[in-house]
């Protein structure tokens, strides 16, 4: 057995809000293997984004431990790529300067950086937009800039928090297909948070269902659809339908529960 890419052990997250203690995550344990594509689904406020933030080291956990690539996560985790839900592209830098940012931080020389940036822009279909400022781009293009930026420095583990949530349906499919291609070509480990069950099934090799507050892992569904997958066609396969039924059965009572809160 190879060592896990990410190993989450009995992680709790409690915080004090309005004079009472709220349990956001209750004793979550999970092993994510190297090269896996794992999707987190669950109702709003179930702590799936919180868990992602903890893997990234942005939020401290109340108890438990997270080990990523044999390193316990105790501070900002500089060995992952993180595509946040909100726009994280720096508006005062051009597309090129944004994509080159992680390389700049690593002291990569200008010539080398330029070459790498050009490659990445090609990869996400943004050739010719290097000199544009983010405000000149659409939301979907900015997401692709963030994706190029994340891939530019080649982290082995990618954390993605509803990266395609704000995109229109067609563009979403295009981006999903690009992501699958990159994942397969570059052998990444991906943890992907989404609200969209169909997206989770189309992309992931394993879908984790979180229960509503307190957040717990309720159910795990391995997706038995071989790669390479075509995200356009995958939803017509019987295996997709079966997975969807199982996941919906587990997820729907949680959503109803969330509504009552």
């Amino acid at each position, binding site marked *: 057995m190879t060592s896990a890419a990410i190993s989450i052990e009995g992680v709790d997250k409690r915080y004090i809000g309005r004079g009472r203690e709220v349990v956001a995550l209750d004793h979550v344990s999970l092993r994510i293997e190297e090269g896996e594509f794992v999707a987190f689904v669950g109702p709003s406020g179930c702590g799936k984004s919180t868990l992602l933030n903890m893997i*990234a*080291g*942005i939020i401290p956990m109340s108890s438990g431990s997270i080990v990523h690539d044999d390193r316990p996560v105790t501070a*900002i*985790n*500089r060995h*992952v*790529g*993180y595509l*946040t839900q*909100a*726009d*994280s592209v*720096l*508006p*005062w*830098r051009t597309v090129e300067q944004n994509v080159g*940012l*992680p390389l*700049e*931080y*690593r002291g990569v020389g200008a010539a080398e950086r330029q070459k790498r940036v050009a490659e990445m822009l090609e990869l996400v*279909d943004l050739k010719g*937009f290097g000199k*544009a*400022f*983010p*405000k*000149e*781009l*659409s939301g*979907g*293009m900015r997401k692709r800039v963030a994706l190029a*930026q*994340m891939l530019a*420095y080649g982290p082995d583990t990618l954390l993605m928090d509803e990266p395609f949530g704000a995109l*229109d349906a*067609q*563009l979403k499919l*295009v981006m999903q297909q690009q992501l699958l291609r990159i994942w397969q070509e570059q052998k990444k480990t991906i943890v992907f948070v989404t609200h969209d069950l169909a997206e989770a099934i189309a992309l992931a090799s394993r879908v984790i269902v979180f229960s509503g507050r307190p957040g717990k892992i309720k159910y795990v569904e391995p997706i038995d659809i071989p790669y390479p997958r075509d995200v356009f066609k995958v939803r017509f396969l019987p295996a997709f339908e079966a997975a969807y039924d199982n996941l919906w059965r587990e997820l729907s009572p949680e959503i109803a529960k969330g509504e009552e809160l």
Partner: protein
Amino acid sequence: MTMRIDEGAAMGTSAPVSRAVKDFEAGLARRKLLVYVCQFAFGVAFLSFWQWASGRLIDPFFISSPAAVFGKLYTWLLNGDLFNHLSITLYATAIGFAIGSAIGFSLGLLFGKFAFLAEVLDPYITALYSIPKLALAPLFIIWFGIGIESKIAVSASIVFFVVFLNTFSGVREVNPIFIHATQIMGASQWGVMRTVIIPSAMAWVITGLKVSVPYALVGTVIGEFMSANRGIGFIIAQATGLFDTNSVFAGIIVLAFVGAVINGLLKITEGHLLRWRA
């Protein structure tokens, strides 16, 4: 397909310019020209009325007249007075502005980084801010004498507060997502400062600078009013003492002109530095 439309729209399509677009742009250009013409006409009308009213409606002793004022300016220009006094005023303003904004910016960054320090000192800063800075001018004259140093001190103290408060707010306003995202990408403390905090605060800082340049000029001139032997403020104060309205108006017009030029330059600089903004 969607992507292509998307990208075309975002970058401004290079499709042949249609007639409607041309007409629209020509209309905008015409309107702009009309504004310029009207602005010029207004100025001419105002000066003409002033010239006419002087001596007919009101004694020129009080309101002088455009001809006399421009005559005065012309004399100053020829005998070098304009250059001598204006250069002193501008020099004091520029140095005061530079010192005030450098200290304001540095302390603003520092306070923005250390929230505890900021919280402790908050009431004192508010109190200091509430003092009309011009009330400090006599004190500065005692400390630094009637030379240029006291004028620099007045304008620096005004500029300092505006820049400090704006920088401070700018740093506090930085989106934490940008900080976390860049840290994960491998940014050091300095890297975050250089690539996120300073550029993000820049919009605020520039606003602060823009507002404070006219203040710096005001500070210098007030300092010169109170006690000086050179500068535009000194000329105005001296002419007032001699009931020389021609020179008073000439001095005021110089200040108005300088203020307008500085504001124009700042606007251009701002437009360039903040070109990334929507």
